[in-house]
């Protein structure tokens, strides 16, 4: 018998299959491409097998590469032939029926979820199909006599939507199908995310269009379990802590406050909010703990573990990271049944293969990527870190090596997806790992016990509350450590590849070669030193002021936000856009550490919202506002403005009110010339807050930039009257009021005569900004228009007498 060379086939199968998927998504299958591809492939196979004589190995690699390409193309073809897609192109009115297959998101006036469509009624005919669509239902919960909910209540005899719209439910809705346009762009986009979830269409309707709701027994059980645990958590535990626990243990993150998410993101503990492998490992250890007490037999043990894992996976909904973890655990059980030793890396590859075979698009899922990388990091890197400690195993070194290697493995992917990486995560995870295990296992025990003996777990809940409190302390403390975050806006996919390439080479050197351990230790230490040096150099370089005057108009949806940076190191922010658009992160990505001047044009929420976040996070020297007459504004706006002033007072920030024709010298080169509002004239414009916007000219050397806030035609007329003799001519004009037609006043535009005009506006906004009229007027004065909705963040750099314009996504 010839000596068979053993191989770990799965190490070749999974990577080549995934590579096939990636290649397959980017090439179109045609006869010529198949022939070219196959011939290249066969040449490579022949060459490689000639080189080391292992023909089968390369054949297997090639085979799975082709299978990957084939599968992804099959999926894409299937999706392109989707009936829903065809109907959506004609915006047909249909009735869809199916199961809710994502956790619904409840907003103030709407609820949104994915529907696995089983039947569709169209033109009186009923078709059976298997497809997905996104559903958005509008309701008006705040209005007690709203007729939208009437029909729903009749159907359901329940008042709250949350009682019947949940994961796993089946529902029938009629409405108009719309196609979701997919941008072909690099980087993350919502549309791409939907496409990778096999969603190409959306159906928007109101709640009264729900025709049928029926609840399956299984999802009813799930709802019951979740509801019972939620109730118990909410009763016994601090509300902030209980929302966290519901997220961490039951996978429902919808009620966690944005503040908590922010703290956990910054401290690098966000993964605790998601169900992950940690939960599954803990389930297994809880069962081991119980079987030691009850002396369960081997097969009962395995049986119970499998039941627990499967039911838990069902309970929390099947996200990629959960599926990864449960498949791995199930495979471990299989290894026990077969009497094989499990190989962690083979397990990981096998579960990746199963997952991608089930849904090839799951490789684009961030949870999938992070989950696999972190586990691979633990298996591959942490033994190397342990060697640095001379393999002394204790809680301290173990925790450190695990957290460090996980962070090392996921850093590039985190930077690629979120442009932000928490350096303190190494510290925070180190502090949090022991307590998080306690919280998760106690939490899961409580969920199960709550079904049987409710009263008995009260002491457990007390412990849980205290432990969660400690975790919150850690995350809050770590999120406030200065320089704890690494921001990098241009982390491209190529950098990710380069990073992993170097990592694989270093790992190969450290694991496979027989170099002395001393040399290896030196190598690892110098690598770590290099990495730290790189990070700090980058942080330092980023904080340096730009060489030339740089102005950035941020794409923050419908609203304004503009950053001006001078070579002298002055950073100025004009408005902050609406709330929750990550203006703070965008500033960090620009390397802004402090702001010399913050200017609020007027207190509408699309200008002030983000500024409140900025004031809370970034040190500010001076805030500039115009004089305002708020006598005719509604209370929520005044409240917001007051809270804005409150923060300024509490933080001891200087505030200044300027009126027209004031001049503020910021540095020798930089000055601000105020144009509007004139306090004597605003009283008759008080009915429209937009007309009280601060208008000013920013002058840097010979450059002039005009910021106009939201001023409309009336105020523009007044300005022209005032400035008959004074020039308001500017190089750059921020077009007033997102280019609304109410702000289109040709004489004003002509007086300014800008070389460049910027429209800061959100994509698909409901006001239809910018208006065609203003675009026509700007074209009349031959002024090029740059729009944030089309370009993303617009960056202008003054070089000599020209402006260099670039876009950043």
């Amino acid at each position, binding site marked *: 018998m010839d000596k068979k060379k053993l191989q770990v*086939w799965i190490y070749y199968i999974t990577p080549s299959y995934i590579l096939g998927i990636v290649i397959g998504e980017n090439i179109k299958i045609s006869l010529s491409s198949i022939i070219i591809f196959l011939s290249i492939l066969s040449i490579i196979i022949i060459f490689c097998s000639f080189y080391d004589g292992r023909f089968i190995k390369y054949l297997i690699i090639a085979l799975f590469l082709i299978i990957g390409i084939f599968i992804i193309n099959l999926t894409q073809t299937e999706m392109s032939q989707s009936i829903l897609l065809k109907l959506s192109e004609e915006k047909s009115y249909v009735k869809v029926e199916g199961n809710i297959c994502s956790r619904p998101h409840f907003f103030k006036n709407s609820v949104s979820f994915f529907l696995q469509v089983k039947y569709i009624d169209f033109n009186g005919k009923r078709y059976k199909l298997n497809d997905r669509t996104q559903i958005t239902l509008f309701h008006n919960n705040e209005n007690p006599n709203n007729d939208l909910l009437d029909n729903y209540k009749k159907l359901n005899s329940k008042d709250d939507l949350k009682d019947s719209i949940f994961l796993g439910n089946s529902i029938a809705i009629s409405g108009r199908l719309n196609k979701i346009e997919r941008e072909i762009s690099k980087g993350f986009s919502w549309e791409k995310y939907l496409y990778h979830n096999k969603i190409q269409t959306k159906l928007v309707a109101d709640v009264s269009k729900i025709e049928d709701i029926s609840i399956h027994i299984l999802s009813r059980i799930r709802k019951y379990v979740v509801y019972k645990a939620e109730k118990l958590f909410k009763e016994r535990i601090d509300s902030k802590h209980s929302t966290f626990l519901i997220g961490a243990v039951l996978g429902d993150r919808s009620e966690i406050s944005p503040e908590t998410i922010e703290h956990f993101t910054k401290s690098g503990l966000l993964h605790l909010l998601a169900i992950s492998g940690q939960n599954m490992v803990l389930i297994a250890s809880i069962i081991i703990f119980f079987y030691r007490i009850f002396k369960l037999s081997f097969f009962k043990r395995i049986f119970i573990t499998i039941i627990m894992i499967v039911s838990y996976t069902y309970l929390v909904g099947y996200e990629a990271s959960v599926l990864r973890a449960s498949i791995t655990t199930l495979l471990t059980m299989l290894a026990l049944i077969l009497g094989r030793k499990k*190989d962690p890396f083979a397990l990981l590859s096998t579960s990746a293969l199963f997952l991608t075979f089930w849904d090839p698009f799951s490789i684009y899922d961030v949870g999938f990527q992070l989950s696999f990388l972190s586990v691979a990091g633990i298996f591959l890197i942490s033994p190397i870190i342990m060697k640095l400690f001379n393999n002394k195993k204790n809680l301290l070194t173990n925790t450190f090596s695990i957290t460090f290697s996980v962070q090392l493995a996921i850093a590039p992917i985190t930077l690629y997806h979120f442009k932000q990486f928490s350096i303190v995560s190494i510290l925070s995870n180190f502090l949090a790992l022991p307590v998080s295990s306690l919280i998760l296992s106690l939490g899961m025990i409580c969920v199960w016990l709550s079904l049987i003996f409710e009263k008995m777990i009260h002491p457990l809940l007390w412990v849980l509350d205290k432990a969660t409190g400690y975790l919150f302390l850690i995350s809050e403390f770590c999120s406030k450590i200065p320089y704890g975050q690494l921001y990098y806006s241009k982390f491209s996919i190529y950098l990710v590849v380069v990073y992993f390439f170097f990592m694989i080479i270093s790992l190969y050197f450290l694991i496979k070669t027989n170099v002395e351990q001393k040399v290896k230790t030196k190598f690892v230490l110098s690598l770590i030193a290099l990495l730290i040096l790189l990070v700090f150099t980058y942080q330092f370089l980023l904080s340096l002021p730009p060489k030339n005057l740089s102005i950035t108009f941020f794409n923050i949806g419908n609203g304004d936000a503009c950053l001006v940076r001078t070579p002298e190191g002055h950073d100025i922010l004009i408005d902050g856009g609406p709330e929750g658009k990550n203006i703070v992160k965008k500033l960090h990505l620009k390397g802004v550490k402090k702001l010399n001047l913050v200017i609020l044009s007027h207190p509408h929420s699309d200008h002030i919202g983000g500024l409140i976040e900025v004031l809370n996070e970034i040190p500010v020297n001076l805030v500039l506002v115009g004089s305002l007459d708020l006598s005719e504004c509604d209370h929520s706006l005044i409240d917001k403005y007051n809270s804005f002033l409150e923060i300024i007072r509490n933080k001891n920030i200087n505030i200044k009110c300027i009126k027209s024709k004031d001049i503020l010298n910021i540095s020798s080169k930089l000055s601000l010339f105020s144009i509007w509002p004139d306090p004597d004239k605003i009283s008759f414009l008080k009915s429209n807050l937009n007309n009280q916007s601060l208008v000013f000219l920013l002058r840097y050397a010979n450059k002039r930039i005009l910021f106009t806030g939201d001023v409309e035609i009336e105020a523009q007329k007044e300005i022209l009257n005032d400035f008959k003799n004074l020039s308001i001519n500017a190089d750059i004009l921020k077009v007033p009021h997102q280019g609304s037609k109410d702000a289109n006043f040709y004489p004003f535009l002509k007086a300014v005569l800008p070389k460049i005009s910027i429209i800061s506006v959100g994509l698909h906004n409901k006001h239809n900004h910018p208006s065609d009229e203003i675009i026509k007027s700007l074209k009349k004065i031959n002024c090029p228009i740059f729009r944030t909705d089309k370009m993303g963040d617009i960056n202008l750099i003054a070089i000599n007498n020209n402006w260099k314009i670039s876009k950043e996504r």
Partner: protein
Amino acid sequence: MIRILKSLIDIFFPPKCVICSKLNENFLCDDCIRNISVTGNYVCQFCGKPTIRSVNKCLECKDEKLYFTKARSFGIYEGVLKDVIAEYKYKNVRALTKLLTQLLYITLQKYYRDISFDSIEYIPMTKRSKSFRGFNQSELLAKELGKITELSVNGFLIKTKNTKKQMSLSLSERRKNLIGVFDFVGSKENCRGDILLIDDVYTTGYTVSECSKVLLNNGANDIYVLTLARSLLIQ
């Protein structure tokens, strides 16, 4: 069919050495086998303990009343062999059975070549511990060895009481701990001649001795003990 199934399993659970993770069909690579300290030529002629020169009875067994005729082990219960047995017994790597039986067979050839056995017997476990572990390692080894040597494996012994772990007791307690816990359930006609008794680890010899006693009382002539490892912890 079984071969296809096996190669399918090999894809997902690659056969690797349990000690050093190198690929190996037998789940223990040749390098690691070489690291096992095998019992040499000089052993106690009675209990099989490795000695400096050949003796008929060593210090350890000369004052003991042990019922078997001879005992021999493959290697010393330390290092690699200890780890392998731990993997096998506690981590449930039953795939090691084949290789470990091979090791037993080598020992059988080495020490008991002249003896023609009538049957093979193994140390039993109580029902409860067997179901807890899922298998009886001595039984698996004995059955596999039965296939190689074409001898019948009897399994006439049962363990009736759950005893404390031998490791946790002092020397004097160990003997008492085992008195009367083994029982005979088979037919006496088949229990005759020379019997090969299989166990995984030999420490004091009390366990195999008790089993030998039961077998002798039920008609066996001579009991030869064969174990994988010989513990040297007790001097």
